[in-house]
């Protein structure tokens, strides 16, 4: 969709990563992002949009502090010329992004260069070529390139979020599946609201979603192709299936099946359609999530009396409880790097979002309040999205928080929003 050409860094020396974002005393990197230069007057709108998207992405990440453009001294007009580093040093910029945009028919071409102001050198440079409707994606890809070069970690801006759009009063709520870019733009509805839909989750290919839907018969787990709109029921189970999630290879869906008083975990191979029981307990086992290498599964169970998080092998078997703090734990989800499990914690009438290591150690609460629920990791594991209810007759909103617990921010949605699930990187 977006083609990329590397720029020979004309002025570069071998440069180290600029900052260490994992230091405790980390401060956001001051960065200057002067307006991308439109090649013709007609390109001004696109250039401005790209500049805005990059600026917003980097600011929202909490790792960058974009400098107020009013402070800029040099006006960038030639992207191929070396910037006047002194004029950017004076306003305390550590990094500088310059770029140029031109439209050719239905296509958009953009060049960008990332500069280390203090070292006076180019860190990276790329040229992108895409169709006009992908302009925002192009800006997300540039944002990722800058983020990666400066932090040394993969970015996450070129990604989407599927969530449940909620409208209407609380006792007559209409829920629709919706998808949007990670920054809240480009919302598109995937269902019409006729049926109650819950807990959408992305496939690793980002082309499919699995979710729970009510319909004419028992509520079921479904698959939805987000490009074609094709929809199918997952499996032929004797009862309600819910709480689905893809395996890391995308070939299987793990879910809960309610039978009698109990809910147990099952997995279905999407190609062979064969199903396998993974747990067999007189309990509620639900909210399963695979480790990124597929070797283990975390889930919640009340087999010990209250909801707690357990970990078992990737094909079932004995499970170890890993949550031992005060209160109960639910909705565990494994991080993309495998280093953490995020969860919802209930205690003292409060709902928190937290993370712990897969062995249960190192628990850290990231946000706490009346009702926070349903964490999902961004593709590099640095940011968690969740939903929050304030109580009363209102509805839920989406929020993000850094895994350090810093930088909590609301994600704008057209109406109420819940059950977010972050996609992997699109490219």
């Amino acid at each position, binding site marked *: 969709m977006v083609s990329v050409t590397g720029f020979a860094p004309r002025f570069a020396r071998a440069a180290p990563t600029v900052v260490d974002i994992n230091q405790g005393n980390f401060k956001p990197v001051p960065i200057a992002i002067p307006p991308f230069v439109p090649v013709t007057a007609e390109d001004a709108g696109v250039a401005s949009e790209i500049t805005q998207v990059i600026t917003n992405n980097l600011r929202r990440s909490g790792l960058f502090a974009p400098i107020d453009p009013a402070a800029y001294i040099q006006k960038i007009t030639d992207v191929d010329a070396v910037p006047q580093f002194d004029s950017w040093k004076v306003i305390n910029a550590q990094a500088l992004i310059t770029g140029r945009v031109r439209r050719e028919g239905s296509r958009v071409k953009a060049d960008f260069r990332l500069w280390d102001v203090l070292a006076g050198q180019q860190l990276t440079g790329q040229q992108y070529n895409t169709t006009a409707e992908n302009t925002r994606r192009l800006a997300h890809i540039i944002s990722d390139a800058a983020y990666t070069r400066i932090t040394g970690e993969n970015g996450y801006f070129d990604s989407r979020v599927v969530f449940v759009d909620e409208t209407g009063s609380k*006792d007559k709520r209409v829920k629709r599946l919706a998808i949007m870019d990670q920054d809240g733009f480009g919302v598109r509805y995937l269902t019409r609201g006729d049926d109650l839909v819950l807990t959408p989750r992305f496939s690793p290919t980002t082309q499919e979603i699995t979710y729970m839907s009510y319909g004419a018969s028992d509520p079921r787990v479904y698959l939805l192709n987000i490009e074609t709109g094709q929809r199918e029921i997952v499996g032929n189970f004797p009862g*309600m299936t819910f709480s689905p999630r893809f395996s890391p290879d995308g070939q299987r869906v793990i879910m809960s099946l309610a039978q009698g*008083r109990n809910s147990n975990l099952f997995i279905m191979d999407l190609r062979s359609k064969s199903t396998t029981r993974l747990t067999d307990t007189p309990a509620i086992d639900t909210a399963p999530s695979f480790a990124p290498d597929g070797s283990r599964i975390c889930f919640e169970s009340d087999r010990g009396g209250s909801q707690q998080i357990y970990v078992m092998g990737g094909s079932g078997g004995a499970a170890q409880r890993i949550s031992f703090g005060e209160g109960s734990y639910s*909705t565990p989800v494994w991080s993309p790097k495998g280093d953490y499990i995020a969860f919802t914690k209930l205690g003292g009438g409060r709902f928190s979002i937290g993370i712990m290591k897969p062995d249960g150690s190192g628990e850290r609460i990231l946000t706490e309040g009346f009702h926070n*629920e*349903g964490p999902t990791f961004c593709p590099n594991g640095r940011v968690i999205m969740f939903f929050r209810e304030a109580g009363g007759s209102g509805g839920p909103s989406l929020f993000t928080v850094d895994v350090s617990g810093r930088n909590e921010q609301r994600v704008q949605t057209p109406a109420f929003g819940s059950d977010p699930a972050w996609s992997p990187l699109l490219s």
Partner: protein
Amino acid sequence: MILGRAKFVVFLLASLAVAGCASKQIEEGAGLAGSAAPGSPQDFVVNVGDRVFFETDQTELTAQGRSTLDKQAQWLQQYNRYAFTIQGHADERGTREYNIALGARRAQSVREYLAARGVAPTRMRTISYGKERPVAVCDDISCWSQNRRAVTVLNAGGQS
């Protein structure tokens, strides 16, 4: 005890109507009290009681719940033309997936009780709505306790 419960029910209906959040069934029931034809769905809702309530995070029936279900079982055996669905619900103070399972368990508690009282299992279907269909909307226990419920809904197609 019975008098006390009756008072409580009256209060509940009044407060629901004021809050504008009563379910359709309750509103219909309130308007038709006394005039419901024996054996009609209104009769079931008004004179028998279509729902039982649960304690926080519990799926065991309360004494009051068993009393209501005894009356339901008697009525359902008398008017055996009805098939019905038992809807299990949870309050909003739990996570989504768990509440779906919890609602399923509450519906199953009712199903097992009615079956033990002689109602044919073939007439019953269960469904859980988790926390998705509250009847009372506020952020305190007065609402949550009304939402932790299992409702016996007579299938319209079951009427002869």
